[in-house]
């Protein structure tokens, strides 16, 4: 995002009507598009979920609260639609939410300083990947919740998620951001 736009942004922790609406729209989008996913066999129900890009994108563009809400509530609704119940994999919903939250934080601090378009897009991809990596480390709680060994968690849960989400973070998040940038400038937000 451009420097002027970043400067006119509301404080990070304000829950304005804009944050509420974008969080709700993000969660609804994530819930609907999240159903389109490709299950990876031999893993802890890990999917390649293109819609996961929205969590990072909403966090980067609309702040940590909107990102947290989109990931947390969106993932819970996807689980509910798929029949697993909103709380069965609550720690994975938290990891989704944390991804959006961390993207919002690093986006506010680092992206505002990127002046060139290409640099910004590379930063978007790299920062969202790092945020996703850190957030999904929290799924180590599966060792206690699902009774997994460290090796099983690393191979079938975290490793598989890292692989599928890396594709999404590196391809779709910069694509979404590049498309939204001119629209956001036109709207003056």
């Amino acid at each position: 995002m451009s420097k002027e736009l970043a400067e006119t942004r509301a404080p990070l922790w304000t829950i304005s009507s804009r944050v509420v609406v974008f969080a709700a729209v993000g969660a609804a989008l994530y819930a609907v598009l999240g159903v389109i996913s490709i299950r990876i066999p031999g893993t802890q129900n890990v999917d390649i979920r293109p819609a996961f890009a929205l969590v990072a994108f909403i966090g980067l563009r609309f702040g940590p609260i909107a990102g947290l809400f989109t990931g947390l509530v969106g993932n819970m609704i996807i689980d509910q639609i798929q029949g697993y119940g909103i709380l069965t994999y609550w720690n994975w919903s938290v990891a989704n939410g944390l991804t959006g939250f961390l993207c919002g934080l690093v986006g506010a601090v680092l992206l505002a300083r990127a002046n060139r378009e290409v640099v910004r897009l590379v930063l978007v991809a790299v920062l969202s990947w790092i945020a996703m990596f850190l957030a999904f480390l929290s799924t180590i709680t599966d060792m206690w919740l699902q009774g997994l060994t460290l090796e099983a968690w690393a191979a079938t849960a975290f490793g598989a998620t890292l692989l599928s989400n890396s594709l999404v973070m590196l391809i779709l998040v910069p694509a979404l951001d590049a498309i939204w940038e001119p629209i956001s400038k036109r709207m003056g937000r």
Partner: protein
Amino acid sequence: MDVTPRYLGGNSFLGHRDPRVLLLVPVFYLVAVARTEDLRVMLVCAGVALAYYLAGGIPWRAARTNWIFFLSLALLTVTVNSLFTDALQIEATRQAQPLFEMPLTGNPVSAATLSYSATMLVRYIALAMVGFPIAFCVAPGDLGVAFARFRVSQRLAFGVDLTFRFVPSTAAKLTEIIDAQRVRGYTHPRTRNPVRRLISLKPVVIPLTVNSLIDAEDTSNAMDLRGFGAKHRTWMRELIFNRTDYLLLGGFAAFAAALVAYKVLGTDIVWVP
């Protein structure tokens, strides 16, 4: 896939409960069945879940598609993770004497593997039975107020309310965009390459996202003009727990406590007939 919330069990026992009960019961139930390994115990838990589900009065015909989708997914997950591969790496299933090897992967299957797989499947089904009433027995308009009564920020509680209002319209928009792109020659490629499959989704994901976000700007402006957040928000709907609500919650809390005690004492192991 129908993602529209449907209020099917409004006149049932669960439909008359405070929506907070329907949100809290799955929490207690999840605590109760998490890591349960004994198939016999899990079957008893499934009985409790079935009784709860039937109290929701959800017509089978209306929820049939959801059940078929869920059962296919659960069966696939359990078969792949427990039988074809050793993704769960449960110690008891490794120590038992193998009965046969699975074709293709050669994964050894013992009586303990079969028992644990059945436990997993029953657990998924039981959790779905406890979770479905949230989708079908809570009036969509009550979710926001229920979260607000949990002392979640009033604005975020309104956000939950908004999310459930946006889901059906977003799903309808998705269908429109897919149809419009098909008219322009869009086809989903038949490839197993995940990168190509991801890229092929761009003509659908991007217009839907951008359109929804542009509409969101209008919604946000309309809310600002109506003074959203200027004062503490109040809700028309009053939620009060009655005696039945307390009894139901107390029953599930006791059930969770009993199961946790049973597991802590170390008597819960994979059952081998």
